[in-house]
C-alpha cells in the first residue's frame, strides 16, 4: 500500500511517500511496525496525540482496519483556512 507523510512528519521521516508491504491489520499496528524500523520513524511517531491519519483519503481513528486499503496518510492536525 502507498503510505504518505505530510508537514513535519514528512520532514522527520525524510520522504513524502513510500510503498509498504505489511501484514498490519490496523493503522495502530502499522505505526508500531514503522516505529520499529528506524529512529526517524520512532521520532516522527513519538507523540501520537499530534498525529492524524487518513485511510483512502478519509480521516479515521488509529484502530481503523487496513484490509483492502490502497493509501494511508499520516500528518499533523490540519491548519487550513
Amino acid at each position, binding site marked *: 500500500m502507498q503510505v*504518505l507523510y*505530510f*508537514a*513535519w512528519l*514528512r520532514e522527520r521521516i525524510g520522504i513524502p511517500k513510500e510503498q509498504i508491504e505489511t501484514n498490519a491489520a490496523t493503522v495502530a499496528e502499522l505505526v508500531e511496525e514503522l516505529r520499529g524500523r528506524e529512529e526517524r520513524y520512532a521520532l516522527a511517531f513519538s507523540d501520537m496525540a499530534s498525529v492524524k491519519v*487518513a485511510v483512502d*483519503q*478519509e*480521516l479515521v481513528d488509529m484502530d481503523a482496519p487496513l484490509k483492502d486499503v490502497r493509501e494511508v*496518510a499520516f*500528518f*499533523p*492536525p*490540519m*491548519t*487550513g*483556512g
Partner: protein
Amino acid sequence: MAVRVQADDFDIGAEIAAMAAGRKDIGAIVTFSGLVRDMANGQPITTMALEHYPGMTEKALEKIEAEANKRWDLQASLIIHRYGPLDAGANIVLVATASPHRQAAFESAEFIMDYLKSRAPFWKKESGAAGGNWVDARDADETAINRWDQTSKA
C-alpha cells in the same frame, strides 16, 4: 457549488460578479477572505508555505461545501484555497455564499471556515528571519466546530 484548490491568486470581485451574474433572486452574498499576516506569535513572517494533500483536499472541501448546502438555503457557494509559497499580505482562502436571506449567508460562510480550519488537509509553515515553523492547530479552532453541534458529518 464550486471548489478550487490552486497555486494562483484569485480575484474576489470577479468571483462575486460571476456568482451573481444573470440572476436577480440573490438577496445576500457573504465573502470571507483569509490573508497571510506578517506577524505570528510576535515574530515577523515573510512567507508561508502551504502544503496540502492533493485528492483528499478536494474531497474534504466538497464535503464541507455539501454539508453547508444541506444545512442552509444557499443559491451559490464557492471555496477557493491556495497552496504553495505565499508572501505576507497574500490571499490564502476565499469562501463565498449566496442566499435569499442574510442570516443563511453569514452562518454558512462561518460554518465552512470553521470546518476548513481543522478538517481540510492543509499545513502551514511560516518563515521569517527566525527560521521556519509549522503552525500548530489551535484548540480554539477545534472548539469552533462544536458550536455547529455534534451531529455534523462534515
